[in-house]
């Protein structure tokens, strides 16, 4: 795996100079490679993982499973792309199994999401059925455990 991407995937804040020190490479090389990865669309965005549940004004998330009618020529892509354009939609994935698309939706309240599904997603041409699962609690996101536990400690000096 590309070592720069490996570092950035763990910490989007890592600067070219920090990455260069970790890899023992010239900073200019690293900066150029990052620019190339951005230009090529490999790096799409630098995001922050937030535990919204820690805040009073939180968001509500739901996972939706959709059954979609396959369309001639475009397959699932046309419907998936239409769904992806809504800003409420966080992710759109084609999945194997009983359903076709799995999408996550973000809203301010359950009602918000329910209306959004009823008004925007369900009526779309090609969408045959929707099944909405509200997320009640998130334990792990993007490889990070969100449950606060005291960190195990080490002795401060050992031989």
């Amino acid at each position, binding site marked *: 795996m590309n070592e720069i991407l490996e*570092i950035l995937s763990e910490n989007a804040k890592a600067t070219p100079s*920090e990455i260069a*020190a*970790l*890899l*023992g490479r010239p900073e200019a090389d690293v900066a150029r490679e990052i620019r190339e990865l951005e230009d090529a669309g490999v790096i799409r965005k630098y995001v922050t993982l937030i535990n919204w549940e820690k805040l009073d004004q939180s968001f509500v998330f739901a996972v939706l499973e959709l059954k979609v009618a396959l369309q001639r020529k475009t397959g699932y892509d046309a419907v998936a792309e239409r769904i992806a354009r809504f800003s409420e939609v966080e992710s759109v994935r084609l999945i194997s199994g009983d359903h076709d698309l799995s999408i996550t939706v973000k809203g301010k309240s359950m009602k918000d999401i329910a209306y959004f599904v009823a008004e925007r997603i369900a009526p779309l041409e090609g969408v045959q059925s929707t099944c909405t699962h509200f997320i009640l609690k998130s334990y792990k996101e993007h490889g990070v455990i969100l449950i606060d536990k005291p960190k*195990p400690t*080490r*002795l*401060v*000096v*050992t*031989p």
Partner: protein
Amino acid sequence: MKQSLKNLPAWNADAHLNKTVKAMPPSGIRKFFDLVSEMEGAISLGVGEPDFVTPWHVREACIYSLESGNTHYTSNKGMPELRESICDQVHKDLKLDYDPGEEILITTGVSEAVDLAFRATLNPGDEAVVPEPCYVAYTPDIILAGGVPRTVPTKLADEFRVQPEEIASAITDKTRAMLLSYPNNPTGAIMTRADLEDLADVVVENDLLVISDEVYAKLSYSGSHTSFAQLEGMKERTLILNGLSKSHAMTGWRIGYALGDPALVGAMTKVHQYTMLCAPTMAQVAALEAMEKGDEEMLHMRHEYDLRRRMFVSGLNRIGMNCFEPRGAFYAFPSVQGTGLSSEEFAERLLKEQKVAVVPGNVFGPSGEGFLRCSYATSREELIEALDRMETFLGGL
């Protein structure tokens, strides 16, 4: 109560202590430990163990085993499955074959293996050569075994690799064994096959047993580790001591092992069976899981150490702390010789003035004077912060 039991003279526990134990100085690291413990907000580069927690699949396997009631003794030598698994791994890593029945002993950490190795092989007055700076337990263990440690210095000019002339000059007619510990704690030095080959002549000429502590073997950053036992004809006269503490982030589990000639391992097993009986069963179960399925996480941790190593060592050199490239373990060993301070003065002032804890090199032997042991088994953020603070400290000297 009998009359004679009244008015007892004061109990003097000191008079009941073993003279050898009494004469033994406490580890030089103790004083530093106390200093650092009192300091709030200190960044410690003084920890000789991984900052990673043991991978979850290993912990989970142990929990399941406990739930299943697997709480009994194992064979003195250790669980047969674990011995087989380690021998298989050693075959892959070193191309050496050890019989899981007779040539391996599972110990309670490599520390026990070191102790057993000296106790099983040294007679009173026998000498063992120990290159230093080195881990703090070797010379006390030799003394406790009734032996006499003969330390030989290693030098920065040789990148802390032990030189055959140094070994030769320490040998007397009582020398029976030589200790090797590469990749090295505290220097991070390694010995290549060619370096080890240079030692083989002096070992054979003097009929030495080589006790090779290879606990950092998996943490080698420039090519794979070579064991002295891999050299032509050297397997028989080498005891390999290793364990999972450093490679698999399993320090607290206390699982180590010894590999070698059946007579040597058998003698160690005898002492082990009368003292430890067997390594803790639950820890052996965890070790088996780590041996069988722990490679991916182990490689991940090694990769992370390697990234930090590059960043930290280049950082030390950038701020003006001259540091040779450590190619193993997770220690950097920068010099303080240009500062006019001794290792201890430097370490104490760095702690008090900038709250960064490092271990003065002289704790590991006289030739460690003028150096500091800095462990990079700590987070990148802390390493970067520690470098900043060290730079500030150097600027104020």
